[in-house]
């Protein structure tokens, strides 16, 4: 293969040291770094499988409006962020969206999107909204692409296969570098920075040289030792002008979006100082692009012509139609929701004291996670007795802790991923002395060490053969027992103790002494913050339950996706238990009393765990047994059992005629790809007192966060809610949205071909890029979507001025609400107002669907259609 060097490529041989010396070059490197940082912002972070949490794929683009972000992204990446017209039309019809709603949506878009009315007249919108087999169907995913990688250009031009090839190679190197133990022989230089490690490998690896990209190893050998300098050199050889650099870098980054996301997170969040792995990834990818160009020098000119032809296109009428229809569907459903919410809570005077029934004190108050799955259970629980009251609160209960299992090797962060754990909790044997603790620790260590040796024997280079001949036959039995769900493929952690015994014996504990000790002052602070943010500062019931949630699934690498997102993709058990323990501490209670929160001595705090797959609730044994709480707990357990059954009943109807028994099967079946629907269907986030929602069936689609304006004089609690839990809900919502709307770009495809890589991520099939987002099975049941793609409606029971203050103080909140990433609605004085960036608070349309029958509007629409 002839390698063509362009004249300017001669310059690239200048040594990096000399280059750095020249100020102008140094300046251009600073520019380049700024460009890279911009690209990095566009890439959403991705957490490893064990801490997999939902991420808004457009998290770095919220400064743009929803449509602008779509357009910007589509210039450099083949993707889609609007539902298809066909889907929207079907939904419109199925949900009987009225003509008024359509027109209101059009009107709203007109104020929101500049130039909307010029592109899409009202009449045309109405026609497009209903016209089937519309001639201009949805634009393809790559119709707005202006910037391509050279590998893609070569593929288009010469029908080669370079894109898949180089993505595969980048992915292979990254997998080797970030592997956490899948390969028994780990890649060399794992501890070195990515760029250095990659160069050592790619200097030797012949895969690309022999796959049509001759000279790749040579190219890598000649790269400067600094990744940024290397990027600058390569950009020059590729003749990418400074103004096109950011776009080109973005196209490169998105061509390996999964690894870029993974690296984005490891560089930004985990390490104290951000590392250069992101630059390294771009350098790797660009080196391969350069290899393509060196083998096909004509490609560079191709880009230049394309660049000249580039122009900014306004949104097409088709796109605007889809956007307006999405708005219409959202506001239609929001109207439904508001209609249920507003008439009940007629005025704000009703807030506050009504939660105490005439008989006096409540029997129990239960604090659940804001997770949409809690709503179903809470509703059925409150239906059991008037003496029960539930709260919604972020499932880590404000305790940013890291938790270490007994005898475990490392600890796990049990808090939202954007927080750093601030203290550590370890499991101990309850009432155990040092000996019993160390005995159990030793037993655990032995079991883990034994497992490790067994694995080494099973996977060893020569021992694997003996392993098969000696123990292989036993797997015939294991196959049968696993198939029948009598056993699990891997024994559950701590399975040596049955769960009841384990709950009673092994407890997570705040360290009271030692290096990680937490002072009494700090404990009181934690407890006070928790209760104040929860709005539970008086009227304590006899029993208060902190109920975390976790899932029970088998053989599912995406387990963390079913667990509590607020606990970093883990079970909320340790947080719930620590929360209850904190408030059971006499000294803490005394301290709280000094600060104005008086907890009656007969109030018992208990921890619980809501298993979302089976909807069972397990209460952990309380610390003390005074004041005759046994009866309360027994009754509470009965109510919980009844509520669980009712919840399962409701959920099983969603699983299309499945029985309750089938639901229980799902958590044990090793072949189950849909153990539960997790947060599928989420569409709203309601902040307010439970009384405002308790009489309404919200069908498991709503995040509920308790908030009582009257107990928040400073507005601090509201500020916290709108900047933390609301953002988390927004991330979850948009992850489901994106995975549903474009599963190829934002989801992880077919679960049946998932392949766990490096114990950190998922590949699809033979390899390719790391997958992000949700599997298709998580949002679709085979016949229809289980998640209706809608942006989150945030409904806050508070005065507009209060919310306005938060919006003005926090740019993120105003961006999310103003740029169409969510809709913010205030319920103020019994009326609903929607916040818009342009016009501030706008009264939401009163629901008037009853006067406007659907068939009527359909007829009208058809008439308009006929006119055309």
């Amino acid at each position, binding site marked *: 293969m002839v390698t063509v060097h362009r004249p300017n490529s001669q310059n690239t041989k200048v040594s990096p040291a000399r280059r750095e010396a020249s100020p102008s070059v140094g300046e251009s490197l600073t520019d380049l770094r700024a460009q890279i940082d911009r690209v990095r912002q566009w890439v959403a972070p991705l957490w490893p*499988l*064990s801490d997999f949490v939902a991420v808004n794929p457009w998290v770095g683009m919220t400064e743009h409006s929803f449509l602008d972000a779509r357009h910007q992204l589509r210039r450099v990446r083949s993707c889609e962020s609007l539902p298809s017209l066909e889907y929207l039309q079907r939904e419109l019809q199925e949900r009987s969206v009225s003509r008024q709603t359509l027109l209101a949506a059009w009107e709203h878009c007109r104020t929101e999107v500049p130039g909307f009315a010029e592109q899409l007249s009202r009449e045309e919108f109405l026609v497009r909204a209903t016209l089937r087999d519309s001639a201009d169907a949805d634009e393809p995913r790559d119709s707005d692409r202006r910037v391509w990688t050279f590998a893609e250009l070569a593929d288009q031009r010469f029908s080669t296969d370079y894109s898949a090839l180089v993505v595969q190679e980048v992915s*292979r190197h990254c997998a*080797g570098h970030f592997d956490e133990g*899948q*390969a*028994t*022989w780990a*890649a*060399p230089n794992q501890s070195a920075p990515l760029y250095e490690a990659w160069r050592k490998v790619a200097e*030797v*690896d*012949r895969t690309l040289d*022999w796959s049509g990209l001759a000279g790749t190893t040579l190219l890598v050998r000649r790269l400067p030792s600094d990744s940024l300098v290397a990027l600058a050199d390569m950009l020059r050889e590729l003749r990418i002008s400074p103004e096109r650099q950011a776009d080109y870098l973005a196209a490169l980054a998105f061509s390996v979006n999964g690894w870029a996301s993974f690296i984005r997170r490891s560089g930004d969040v985990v390490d104290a100082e951000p590392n250069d792995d992101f630059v390294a990834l771009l350098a790797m990818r660009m080196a391969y692009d350069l290899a393509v160009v060196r083998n096909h020098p004509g490609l560079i000119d191709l880009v230049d012509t394309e660049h000249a032809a580039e122009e900014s296109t306004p949104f097409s009428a088709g796109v605007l139609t889809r956007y307006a229809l999405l708005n219409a569907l959202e506001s239609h459903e929001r109207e439904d929701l508001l209609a249920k919410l507003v008439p009940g809570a007629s005025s704000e005077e009703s807030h506050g004291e009504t939660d105490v029934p005439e008989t006096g004190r409540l029997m129990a108050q239960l604090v659940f996670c804001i997770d949409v799955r809690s709503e179903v259970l809470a509703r059925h629980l409150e239906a059991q007795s008037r003496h029960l009251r539930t709260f919604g609160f972020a499932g880590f209960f404000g305790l940013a802790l890291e938790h270490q299992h007994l005898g475990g*090797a*490392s600890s796990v962060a049990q808090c939202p991923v954007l927080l750093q754990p601030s203290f550590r909790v370890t499991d101990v044997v309850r009432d155990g002395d040092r000996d019993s603790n160390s005995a159990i620790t030793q037993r655990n*260590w*032995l079991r883990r*060490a*034994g*497992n*490790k040796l067994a694995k*080494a024997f099973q996977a*060893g*280079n*020569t*021992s694997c053969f*003996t392993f098969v*001949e*000696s*123990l*292989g*036959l036993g*797997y015939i039995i*294991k196959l*049968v027992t*696993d*198939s029948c769900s009598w056993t699990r*493929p*891997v024994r559950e*952690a701590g399975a040596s103790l049955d769960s009841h015994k384990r709950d009673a014996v092994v407890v997570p504990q705040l360290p009271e002494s030692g290096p990680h000790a937490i002072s009494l002052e700090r404990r009181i602070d934690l407890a006070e913050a928790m209760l104040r943010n929860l709005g539970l500062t008086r009227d304590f019931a006899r029993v208060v339950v902190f109920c975390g949630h976790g899932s029970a699934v088998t*053989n599912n690498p995406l387990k963390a996706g079913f667990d509590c997102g607020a606990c970093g993709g883990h079970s909320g058990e340790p947080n719930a238990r620590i929360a209850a323990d904190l408030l059971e501490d006499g000294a803490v209670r005394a301290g709280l009393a000094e600060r104005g929160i008086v907890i009656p001595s007969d109030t018992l705090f208990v921890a619980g765990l809501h298993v979302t797959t089976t909807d069972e609730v397990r209460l952990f044994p309380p610390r003390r047994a005074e004041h005759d709480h046994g009866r309360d707990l027994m009754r509470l357990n009965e109510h919980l059992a009844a509520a669980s059954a009712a919840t399962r009943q409701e959920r099983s109807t969603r699983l299309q005629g499945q029985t309750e028994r089938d639901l229980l099967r799902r958590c044990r*079946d*090793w*072949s*189950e*790809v*849909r153990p539960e629907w997790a947060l599928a269907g989420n569409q709203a986030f309601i902040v307010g007192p439970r009384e405002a929602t308790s009489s309404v069936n919200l069908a498991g689609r709503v995040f509920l966060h308790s908030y009582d304006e009257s107990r928040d004089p400073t507005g601090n609690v509201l500020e916290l809610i709108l900047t933390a839990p609301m953002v988390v809900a927004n991330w979850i919502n948009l992850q489901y949205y994106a995975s549903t709307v474009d599963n190829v770009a934002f989801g992880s495809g077919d679960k*049946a*071909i*998932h*392949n*766990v*890589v*490096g*114990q950190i991520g998922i590949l699809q*099939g*033979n*390899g390719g890029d790391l997958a992000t987002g949700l599997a298709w099975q998580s949002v679709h049941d*085979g016949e229809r979507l289980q998640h209706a793609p809608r942006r989150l409606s945030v409904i806050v029971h508070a005065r507009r001025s209060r919310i306005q203050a938060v919006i003005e103080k926090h740019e993120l909140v105003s961006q999310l609400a103003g740029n169409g990433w969510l809709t913010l609605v205030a319920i103020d004085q019994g009326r609903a107002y929607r916040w818009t960036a342009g016009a501030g608070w706008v009264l939401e349309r009163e629901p008037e669907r009853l006067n406007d029958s659907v068939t009527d509007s359909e007829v009208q629409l058809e008439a308009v259609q006929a006119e055309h």
Partner: protein
Amino acid sequence: MRAALGVVANRFSVELEGTGMWVFEWFGVVSALAGLLLVWGLPLHRLGMTPLVLARATQICLAWMLVQVAGLTVGLVSGMSRPGGVLEGFGGSLYIDSLTLVMAALISTLGIVVARFAIRYLDGQPRQAYFFRWFAFTLAAVLSLVLVGDLLSLTLAWIATSTGLHQLLTFHPDRREAVIAARTKFVISRLGDAFLILGLVLTYREFGSWRYDQVFAAVEGVQAAGRSQALVWIAVAYVLGAMTKSAQFPFHSWLPNTMETPTPVSALMHAGVINAGGFLIIRLSPLVAQSTLALDLLALIGAFTALFGALVASTQTSVKRSLAFSTVAQMGFMMLQCGLGAFSAALLHIVAHSAYKAHAFLSSGSVLEAAQSRRVNWRGSERWGHVLVANLAALVIASVMLSIVGYSFGILGTDKPGAIVLSLVMLLALTQLIGSSLTRRSPALVVRTLLASCGIVIAYAMSFRVFDLLLAQSVSHSAKSLSPWDALLVGSVMIGFAAMTLLSIRVKSGHSSQWLARLHTHAAAGFYIDVFWRRFIKRLGALPSAL
């Protein structure tokens, strides 16, 4: 080159036909196969049958097959029928002996488990019915392959197997990678067909028949007639055919690239279909064992494939690819056993590996949970000197253990073919296991490891004895005497395994050097075999254009 070799018992010349019992059983077996073909062929899914019905029907057919296997086993054990008996009827013949029954039982059991798995795992897939139809077809083909009584039918079943598999590999026809992988497999399969057909033609020319019983009975005559050269070519043709099917180097390349297909297909393929090559060699052992060249070829390629596969597998970062390369290695080891004449050990390997690998694939979603269950703060030293001493001590302990337990169970007898190599591999395995426990400064762990090692040796001895008894009458037991060439071969195989063990100990103790890093890079790339296959396929023009 003279084949040194035992005699094939004249039992194969006995042909049983016509008794009432045989007819009954013939119908039993054939009805199970026909049932599977009906699941495949009838447009049940168009009649509104759900995929679930297809799955259940497949399971019922397989269960029915298991009943037949049980019946035939009773017949064999009670002496009512003779091993090597041929069930003949309507122009087709079935060859029934313990090898057949073991394989049929294995395939049926795995089939039932995998079908059960696919019911939920592929739930909601638009092509679930398609999957079950071709699943049934492939199972019918593999079952026929092990049941039929003549080489012609075997070849047809062989081709049918790869046809069925091809359909399953393109479960996602819109995924370009899937199509490329399936086409690579297609080309290699056709190569295998060619070898098999060559063997078929040569066999007919030499023996005038394709029936196993007749061929096996005539082997001695041909040998005596001084036409052993012809036997060599026949054996080599079958060996090459088997190598393509059982993913031997360099024909292994298709296997690791089949992850584009849903996990149940991987389980079926790695556990069931891939054994066809090994089965062919074991089935034809009376014939293959006549040729030292064929056996040496098997041993050499097998050993190389085993070491190659194990090395590449240890560098793979994704669970399914590690498993696939581990299958390559295990198939290599199985072929090595065949080449050493240890045919019953090879069958043990097939059965045990199938069960293990099917489980490993189906449970590959648990890899994270499993990794967490062994996350531990290792104590102890990683210093190379300490590690070496520990492993030397472990070598001594393992030798003693193996000698005592091995002799008392009679698996170390030098009369067994290939015993030296296989014992050495076992010794190396135990050394590694015990050695890594010795450096951990935990007496409790050492004691447990020693107990587990004893258990492993005993389990191995028992499994081996059972299969030896099982196959006493079904395979060639010709003890191979070592020629100088053979000694060289066995010697280098042993050195290869020892070197591999040393490498693995060195790597595990965290040492690195430039040449190790380079070796890792090439190994992680699979030594570029796949690159060359892709170029070859591309040159053939068989690569799909952009999808």
